């Protein structure tokens, strides 16, 4: 287990603040949860806690962005995606202003707080916005790379972060390449994993291995822009695809995979792993992931249906 993604991200923001004086950080009264307070302690003159007011936070960030600054807005991902969508779309995306949207407590990771706090529609919302980029890191190191990359962009970038310590996969990853990573090679089925679902997907590959099925595992943090080449090369070879995401199966990463392959000439069979079109519930994080199908066993079972 590595350090929690939010902890690593918060530390990185504070570290980058030392050399990048364009960074300004805003938070909506959750800076001790998002860890943006680490930056706030070091650079109080560049830190703005706006209270529980995500829409205003993003608006204030826009004003700062017009004057050459690079805002990082922090709040729970569900509230950024739902309460500040208008400001993100009509002010940041439309005007192509620089912004890092640090969506904390992504997916089911705010597990005990229940359905009101679990963010399973954020990716669908964010990826529908023109000029937006959407990155879902699989571990702390990838989140840091995503942050460094996002700060080089003169446009909004959404980074979905996890509340908890998730397994440190330690992939060779440079977000600036905007590419997926082939984590394990195989020829029978492609397992495309978005974000922290990578570890469950690797478990699934092991289960399948035991049954003589060679799975190719892709880590696909970029939902937008989407790395068609990496996915295409794999699915063209295997003819089978399972997409895995910690999100509703409506409009998210799986949908992005299908859209990306829709113009390809080859045939393939497909299964989606993610939260079905329903509300989730309170529980321990690991048990919630299993309940909603994000487990090695379920991913392997879906893959087996295709073989």
């Amino acid at each position, binding site marked *: 287990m590595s350090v929690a993604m939010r902890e690593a991200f918060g530390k990185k923001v504070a570290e980058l603040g030392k050399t990048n004086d364009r960074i*300004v950080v805003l938070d909506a009264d959750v800076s001790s949860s998002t860890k943006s307070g680490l930056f706030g302690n070091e650079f109080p003159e560049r830190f703005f806690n706006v209270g529980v007011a995500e*829409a205003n936070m993003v*608006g*204030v960030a826009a004003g700062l962005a017009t004057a050459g600054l690079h805002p990082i807005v922090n709040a729970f991902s569900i509230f950024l995606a739902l309460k500040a969508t208008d*400001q993100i779309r009509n002010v940041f995306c439309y005007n192509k202003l620089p912004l890092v949207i640090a969506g904390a407590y992504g997916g089911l990771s705010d597990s005990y707080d229940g359905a009101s706090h679990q963010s399973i529609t954020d990716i669908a919302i964010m990826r529908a916005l023109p000029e937006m980029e959407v990155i879902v890191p699989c571990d702390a190191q990838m989140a840091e790379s995503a942050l460094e990359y996002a700060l080089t962009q003169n446009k909004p970038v959404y980074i979905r972060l996890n509340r908890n310590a998730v397994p440190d996969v330690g992939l060779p990853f440079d977000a600036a390449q905007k590419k997926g990573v082939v984590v394990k090679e195989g020829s029978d089925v492609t397992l495309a994993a978005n974000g922290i679902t990578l570890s469950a997907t690797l478990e699934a590959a092991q289960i399948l291995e035991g049954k003589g099925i060679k799975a190719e595992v892709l880590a696909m943090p970029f939902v937008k822009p989407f790395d068609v080449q990496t996915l295409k090369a794999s699915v063209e070879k295997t003819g089978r695809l399972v997409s895995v995401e910690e999100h509703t199966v409506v409009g998210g990463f799986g949908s992005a995979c299908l859209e990306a392959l829709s113009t390809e000439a080859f045939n393939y069979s497909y299964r989606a792993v993610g939260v079905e079109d329903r509300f989730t519930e309170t529980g321990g994080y690991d048990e919630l992931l299993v309940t909603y199908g994000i487990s090695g066993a379920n991913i392997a079972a879906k893959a087996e249906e295709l073989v």
Partner: protein
Amino acid sequence: MNPILQSLIENKPFTPLDATQLSALAANLRLEMFDVLHSRQTGHWGGASSAAELTTALYFNRMNVNPDNPRDEDRDRFILSKGHASMNLYTVLAHRGFFPVSDLPGFRTLGSHLQGHPSMNKTSGVDMSTGALGHGLSIGIGMALASQVNNRDYFTYVLSGEGCLDEGQTWEAMLSASKFKPRKLVYMIDYNGVQLDGTSNDIMPLDPLADKFHSFGWNVASSEFDGHDMNSILDSFAWIDSDDIWPKAVIYKTVKGKGVSFMEGKNTWHGAPIDDDSYSKGRVELLADIEKKEALL
């Protein structure tokens, strides 16, 4: 345009106009808005007209802007939070030299840089895209805070109507403005009392508005200014400069659809196309107003 006014607004370096000159100019610009809105059969007359004197006074008397360098980092900023009054802003910016006046008839046509609502990356001089109501104050706070982070010294003006004040975001921004106290942030209310669906008293009462600003910790002008009287507007500017307590709010009493008697105060003229008959009758009134004000030049 009257040749005296034309030479005044073309002066280089630009010299601020006085109240008499501003009044005559605003009357001319209002007519131009009316002409284009009629010819295009789309756009918002009511709120464009109610702010004609306010934006004219800002751009031709008050604001430090440079049409030759529209993104000058030290310029004063203006956000038309009531973005549907775009025809007003475009007319003022064109005559202030940001783009050719001959572009104005292209308002809201496909391919024109004059979008239905202001778009900062399409139209020179527009500091912020607006349209979805309620955004302006938050963004203005950010612009004003940026002047502090960047050690710059400029004013940020935000102009809102009642619609923006109905939006929850504005009240989030009101709260945060009194916390951060952004220097040189001026929130101007074009208080014409009429919204799309009816009077503000019927749709969503806002009075006592000044008291609300007070209770939110703002430095709000104790008197209500007349948003159609240039002397009153210049008095409000003097009040803005009277102390260093921020943020400041100024409420301007205005009339929706000002200048065309049968359109004044009518919510039906919020965004309705101007028909030919109303246009010919309205034009007579607007021309008479110009004549009256130009006689004083």
